[in-house]
């Protein structure tokens, strides 16, 4: 746990990094490019059965009866299970266990899981689903969060963990820091506006998949496309009432997640129980349609913001009221509700701040954490309103963001500790690269530039379930051959965390990059790590890795110094060799150094850990959103709006991201590009919504309108290195922060292009055309001012 106290931010041996900072190839890159990488669906076991799930056709209904006898009688069907077989509720947040693997008594959304079948093949399993008779008694379905808030009956959940639910309210958080009303009263300008975020989903290209096998001695092994192996392990033990030591969970190669594989899912419990019941391995692969219904994507939010500012642009106070549509289950919703307010308090200084967020249940696919969990929607609302403040005050939108910069080594209004903060550098870079000064306001009508800033956490000190154990653990094993094997519970979901771990080990122990083997995300082999969420792995696992390496390095150096009879400070381990820095001819391959150390200290291995320091404000919820370090981002987006069709194109976007230190710049750039793409995609094209029956509007990649390479413009990723005192070599997160600003920067660019403020996502051609038509009419707030701007642009043309 002392990892963060003893390693500093520089290179381990002298001023120069050998491995860290290099654009090295991914540890699994070749396996992926050649098709050798094994994903959950690639697991094929002798005698394996295939499982399918029967889903509810109703958005809200009581289950009167289920008759599976005809299904069981079909040739090739081995087992059918229902909610009665898995009655224990679970939930990823231990305070809100409101899910059953298969519905008990009632269903809460179209797609809710009702029964599962294991059969010899998928066709037989599907035929069996058709043969299951379920009688439902439909209930009123809530599809509008405002109605759910105002209407206490019928309740979607009556009680959770023995506590009665208040109407259909999932979570309510109200926090105030400073006197917001006084701050707004003292402002020279107060803007008020309504904003909304539609729903969007992760849509990883790999559908969820799980395979279970029970060995003769009763050990249950589960291969699953999860991004949090440890929680699946815990949840399986709880729901199956099986001792955790009889369960092994393995995450094979994972085909994308983005938060969508963070919850324990029905398929994991079902294949496990079906494997127990049938004595044969069981696989379940969800269809693309099922992935859309499983969802756990970005919450729709209706947001009211008030922002007060002095005439010099300085913010005096921000006041937010947010209604969050949670869908049918809690999932991470408790955290989402806090995050919707807690993560807005940078990179600008808020002298006062209040938020009042309410998450309600509705009869729709459950929402959860999608990349930029809970904070992307408020960031959109605030940054659009802030842009309007700049416009009203006649201040350049980049300049007003500089004016309000909170600084580094400071504390936010809600008590979060800020360490490094490279936001100003981010602004400088996007301003210069986009040609902001020369081009903004000078482009012809229909084209424009917009800016936005943002912050995000590098992991959180709220570890989902409270305990005193480390958040990240590492084990190292040294082999006489010179190979170092590192065992990590961290989940590489494509972001490259195994590559980061490998780089750190190679740097610290001076071994060749490809002499480091990474064994990850296997609960039998690896120490616990809390998994891939909240952008925590590079930061926390990285620190734990350094901790483990330093212990072993000390032994190797000590043994070699004794053998060579020199001061240990003269020993270096670099680039596959150990040598005496004052007599470089005295050198051996690291393999021989390992052998000297093994002879001196016996078999070589070490552990390393990381836990966060005590962080967060001294109030209820003050630790939620508290992170050991925050990343900062600035975006400039360029748009080309076709005013005849309403189609918005983004020919280019610039994103500068302060990741502390880029341990691998190729991976960091990949995260910046992928995040920016994902934000623009959900703003312009994608929509996760249901119709009046609760049916998904388009549960296919085509209807969901996931962008192709032709729909995406040039994304320019720029890396800012503020070298954080807490991160591994100074690194902070890169996987989620660079999404946030892309959406408001797009909205602000559209305003620059055509003079209309779009406050309600998504920006479809219809939305844009309507806004253009309404221009100069009854538009809210600054619409009058923006019409003037548009007119002058037209004239300039």
């Amino acid at each position: 746990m002392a990892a963060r106290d003893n390693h500093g931010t520089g290179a381990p041996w002298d001023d120069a990094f050998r491995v860290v900072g290099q654009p090295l190839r991914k540890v699994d890159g070749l396996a992926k490019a050649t098709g050798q990488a094994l994903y959950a669906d690639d697991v094929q076991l002798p005698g394996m059965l295939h499982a399918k799930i029967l889903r509810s056709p109703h958005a809200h209904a009581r289950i009167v009866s289920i008759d599976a006898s005809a299904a069981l009688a079909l040739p090739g069907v081995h087992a059918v299970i229902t909610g009665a077989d898995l009655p224990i509720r679970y939930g990823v947040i231990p305070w809100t266990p409101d899910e059953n693997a298969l519905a008990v008594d009632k269903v809460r959304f179209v797609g809710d899981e009702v029964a599962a079948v294991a059969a010899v093949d998928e066709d037989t399993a599907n035929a069996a689903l058709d043969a299951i008779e379920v009688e439902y008694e439909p209930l009123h379905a809530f599809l509008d969060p405002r109605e759910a808030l105002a209407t206490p009956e019928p309740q979607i959940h009556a009680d959770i963990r023995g506590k009665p639910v208040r109407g259909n309210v999932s979570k309510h958080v109200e926090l105030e820091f400073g006197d917001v009303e006084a701050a707004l009263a003292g402002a020279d300008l107060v803007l008020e506006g309504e904003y909304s975020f539609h729903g969007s989903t992760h849509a990883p290209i790999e559908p969820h998949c799980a395979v279970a096998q029970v060995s003769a001695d009763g050990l249950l092994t589960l291969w699953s496309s999860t991004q949090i192996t440890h929680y699946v392990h815990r949840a399986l033990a709880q729901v199956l009432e099986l001792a955790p030591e009889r369960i092994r969970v393995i995450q094979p190669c994972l085909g994308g997640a983005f938060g969508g594989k963070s919850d324990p899912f029905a398929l994991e419990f079902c294949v496990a129980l079906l494997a127990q019941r049938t004595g044969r391995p069981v696989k379940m692969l969800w269809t693309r349609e099922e992935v859309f219904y499983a969802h756990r994507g970005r919450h729709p939010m209706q947001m009211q913001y008030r922002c007060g500012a002095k005439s010099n642009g300085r913010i005096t106070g921000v006041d937010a009221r947010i209604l969050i549509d949670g869908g049918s289950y809690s999932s991470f919703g408790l955290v989402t509700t806090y995050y919707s307010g807690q993560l807005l308090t940078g990179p600008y200084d808020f002298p006062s701040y209040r938020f009042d967020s309410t998450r309600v249940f509705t009869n729709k696919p459950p929402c959860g954490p999608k990349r930029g969990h809970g904070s992307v929607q408020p960031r959109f609302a605030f940054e659009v309103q802030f842009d309007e403040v700049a416009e009203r005050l006649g201040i350049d939108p980049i300049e007003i963001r500089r004016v309000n910069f909170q600084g580094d080594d400071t504390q936010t209004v809600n008590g979060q500790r800020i360490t490094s903060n490279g936001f100003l550098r981010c602004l400088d870079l996007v301003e210069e690269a986009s040609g902001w000064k020369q081009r903004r306001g000078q482009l012809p009508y229909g084209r424009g530039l917009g800016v936005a800033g943002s912050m995000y956490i590098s992991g959180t000190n709220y570890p989902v379930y409270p305990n005193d154990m480390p958040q990240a653990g590492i084990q190292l094993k040294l082999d006489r051959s010179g190979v170092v094997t590192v065992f990590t519970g961290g989940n590489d979901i494509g972001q490259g965390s195994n590559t980061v771990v490998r780089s750190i080990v190679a740097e610290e122990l001076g071994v060749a990059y490809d002499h480091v083997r990474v064994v990850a995300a296997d609960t039998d082999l690896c120490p616990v790590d809390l998994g891939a969420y909240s952008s925590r792995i590079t930061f926390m696992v990285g620190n734990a890795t350094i901790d483990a390496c330093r212990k072993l390095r000390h032994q190797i150096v000590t043994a070699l110094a004794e053998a060579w009879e020199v001061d240990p400070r003269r020993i270096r381990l670099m680039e596959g060799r150990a040598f005496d820095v004052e007599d470089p001819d005295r050198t051996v391959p690291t393999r021989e150094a390992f052998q000297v150390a093994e002879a001196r200290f016996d078999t070589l291995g070490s552990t390393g850990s990381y836990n966060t320091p005590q962080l967060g404000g001294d109030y209820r919820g003050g630790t939620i959103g508290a992170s050991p370090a925050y990343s900062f981002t600035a975006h400039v987006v360029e748009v080309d709006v076709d005013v005849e069709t309403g189609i918005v194109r983004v020919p280019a976007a610039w994103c500068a991201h302060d990741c502390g230190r880029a341990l691998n710049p190729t991976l960091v750039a990949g995260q910046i590009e992928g995040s920016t793409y994902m934000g623009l995609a959900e703003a312009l094209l994608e929509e996760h919504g249901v119709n009046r029956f609760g049916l998904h509007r388009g549960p296919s990649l085509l209807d969901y309108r996931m962008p192709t390479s032709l729909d995406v413009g040039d994304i320019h990723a720029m890396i800012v290195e503020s070298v954080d005192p807490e991160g591994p070599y100074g690194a902070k997160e890169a996987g989620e922060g660079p999404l946030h600003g892309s959406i408001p920067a797009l909205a602000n660019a559209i305003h620059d292009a055509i003079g209309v403020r779009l406050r309600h996502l998504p920006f479809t051609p219809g939305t844009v055309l309507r806004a253009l038509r309404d221009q100069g009419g009854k538009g809210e707030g600054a619409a009058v001012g923006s019409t003037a701007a548009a007119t002058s642009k037209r004239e300039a043309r």
Partner: protein
Amino acid sequence: MSEPFELELTVNGTPRTVRVAPLRRLLDVLREDLALTGTKEGCGEGECGACSVFVDGELVNSCLVAACQVEGCDVRTVEAPDLGNVQAAFLEEGGAQCGICTPGMVLAVQAFVDEWAARGREPDDVELRAALAGNLCRCTGYEKILASARTALRRARP
């Protein structure tokens, strides 16, 4: 009609015979009957391109091709031995993140390289993007995949 038949085809240069139902998806023939799991299933309805393979030189979605349609055909998958140039480009440019689209993308880039290597001019940005538009990626924003394609094409040129 649905009686299994002896499907004869060539896969990555090797003649293969498998007994399959005529409407079995080529994707399943490859993954399950021939244990070539490099070809991935992303949607099962022809939208994502993760299951792309070559059939007689044409890039197709193998989830939409029935076994009876590939009788006597020459099928090439990501496991084919002659894709090294494109695969190396993906490795070097960081073209793979989660990697689930990568096998299909590698074949789409190979098709692009085959088409453009002999031409006398460089493809423009739209031509390059159009060549890959049948394959969805959710991780990269396509930047590093496009870079991989450019690198592979450059190296394929005489």
